[in-house]
């Protein structure tokens, strides 16, 4: 089930919310867990079994690690078992087709194989489970004795299928005790509505422009069209994913949970390093905590640091998808981050802000080409067109048509991808002297945004969700 669907907005959420608030506090986790399982089973009835088995396995593995705390060797073995089984499960469902396709591409014979659809959210919930196992092993968290709490941690519907990836240590206490208040509920509703609008109004609308450009024959479009296509995709993926994260954070608040933010205006970054501190923060944090630092992080020789960065970024690329272009995309960022850290980082700092921003955006946009392309060959051809190679012209009527007919959409997208958009909204609401009028104004503004989003949802059929497949 998608947050941006009529069924979720008008059936699932109100019913869950009503039950959650009506029942006594001790039953709230049960309601939340049942709702989460229904939410998942709605789209993936077969794979609910996989998620339940994964919950059981990790719950028992956590207890097993705790049992062996007095014997570090056995405890380490137990950790390795849990991590390997989790990685094998993720690897089987996500990467075995990719592996066999790659083998088929180099072998003289074609090996046919049985393929299974990717279980939704497996990358997210497997990473959450591994964070729990590793935190328990490190002694940063106690093993969870209550399976209800643990099952809720893994399956909680606000962040189940598209993150943010919540670390167990961050939510351990909230599983048992959390504060519900009208203020928190209202704040959560604001987050949710903003996220919904980002997804339904902005991401879906700009996504349609990208889809039109992506369907053009290579060589039939101009340099400008290629850039418009790439910029459109950049906005689409940002509003799509950050919108979903905002909705998850908002829903969390409405149910009393506090999740860390997952996006912090990444397109205002003035370096690639900064971009990755602002984009999909929960994933970067996961890789830093559980891969980069254990590999030695910064506390090793320069060559080892470079190796660590490249390994982490190749894995980050692969996490996003089982395809060579994702691997290349990860490596591309690994190399850029190495270059910023060891080659041109200091020189970059001395540049004017505008130049630094242009530098970051150009590399980020090129990165998105690897991300959206169906193959590496297509990506290189598309990048070629962006720089004039194989383009039909520098600018054509088609490009100008996209820019002039959608200028307002792009303007809102620019405002919305920086703090300007939200500040403007706050100024509109906060511009009244009376606190009561401010409250009414906030209600009117947010309800209007919600109704416009619903109108888009009902009338538009184009409602993909890009991070679903990860």
């Amino acid at each position: 089930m998608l947050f941006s669907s009529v069924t979720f907005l008008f059936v699932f959420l109100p019913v869950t919310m009503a039950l959650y608030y009506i029942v006594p506090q001790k039953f709230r986790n049960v309601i939340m867990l049942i709702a989460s399982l229904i939410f998942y089973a709605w789209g993936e009835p077969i794979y609910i079994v996989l998620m339940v088995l994964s919950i059981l396995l990790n719950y028992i593995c956590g207890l097993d690690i705790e049992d062996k705390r007095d014997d570090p060797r056995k405890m380490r073995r137990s950790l390795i078992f849990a991590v390997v089984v989790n990685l094998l499960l993720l690897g089987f469902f996500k990467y075995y087709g990719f592996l066999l396709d790659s083998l088929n591409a180099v072998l003289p014979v074609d090996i046919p194989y049985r393929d299974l659809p990717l279980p939704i959210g497996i990358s997210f919930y497997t990473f959450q489970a591994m964070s729990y196992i590793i935190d328990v092993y490190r002694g940063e968290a106690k093993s969870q004795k209550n399976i209800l709490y643990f099952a809720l941690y893994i399956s909680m519907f606000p962040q189940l299928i598209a993150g943010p990836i919540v670390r167990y240590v961050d939510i351990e206490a909230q599983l048992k005790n959390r504060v519900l208040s009208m203020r928190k509920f209202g704040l959560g509703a604001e987050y949710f509505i903003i996220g919904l609008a980002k997804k339904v109004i902005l991401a879906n609308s700009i996504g349609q422009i990208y889809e039109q450009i992506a369907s053009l024959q290579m060589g039939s479009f101009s340099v400008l069209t290629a850039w418009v296509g790439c910029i459109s995709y950049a906005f689409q993926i940002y509003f799509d994913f950050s919108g979903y994260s905002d909705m998850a954070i908002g829903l969390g608040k409405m149910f009393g949970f506090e999740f860390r933010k997952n996006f912090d205006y990444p397109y205002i970054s003035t370096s690639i390093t900064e971009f990755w501190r602002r984009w999909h923060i929960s994933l970067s944090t996961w890789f830093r905590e559980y891969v980069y630092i254990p590999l030695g992080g910064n506390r090793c020789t320069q060559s080892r640091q470079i190796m660590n960065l490249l390994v982490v970024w190749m894995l980050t690329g692969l996490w996003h998808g089982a395809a060579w272009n994702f691997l290349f995309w990860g490596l591309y960022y690994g190399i850029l981050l190495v270059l910023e850290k060891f080659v041109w980082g200091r020189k970059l700092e001395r540049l004017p802000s505008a130049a630094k921003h242009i530098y970051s955006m150009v590399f980020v946009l090129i990165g998105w080409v690897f991300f959206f392309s169906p193959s590496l060959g297509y990506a290189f051809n598309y990048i070629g067109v962006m720089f004039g190679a194989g383009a039909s012209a520098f600018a054509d009527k088609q490009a100008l048509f996209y820019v002039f007919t959608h200028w307002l959409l792009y303007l809102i997208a620019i405002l919305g991808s920086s703090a300007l958009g939200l500040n403007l909204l706050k100024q509109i609401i906060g511009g009244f002297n009376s606190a009561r009028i401010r409250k009414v104004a906030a209600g009117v503004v947010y309800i209007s945004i919600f109704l416009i989003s619903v109108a888009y949802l009902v009338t538009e059929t184009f409602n993909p969700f890009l991070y679903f497949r990860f």
Partner: protein
Amino acid sequence: MMQEKNIQRRGPGKNMILKYFVLVMIIAYIVVLMIYTSGSTKSFDKIEQAVESSLDTENLTKVDVQGLKRYYGLNSADYDGVMLYSSQKSMSTEEVLLIKVKNDGQMQHVRDAVQKRIENRKNDFEGYAPEQVKLLEQAQLSVRGKYLFLAIAPKAEAYKDAFAKSL
């Protein structure tokens, strides 16, 4: 010293046994998934050949690409492969359809079109051909990876088995 002795004496704990038990359950679950729900990367021609060889061609005739548009409102060119057999008798609902979609996103659209076709046919035959309505109600629909298979026929189950075996 005392602690060391305790460690040495301890056998595999309850959780140690349980985790292996769950692992076995996971493996069994994956085996079941592979047998009953997986798709196949075999070429469309191979699957088509295997399904065709099982069909009773006395009642069923191969329909050209236009048939898919006429009956289901779908364009053959949008898919990796299409095979459609239908009965030429006007009072028969027998039909066998095999489609390989190009991407997972197309599957829901195809599935909806198939459901709509079954409903339309039910409406057409409702009231005066109950045995044909029964065939439609017992239609065998199977989605395996990128393949969708539909059989409306007295031997629908056998056709579906042939499809499953061909993957």
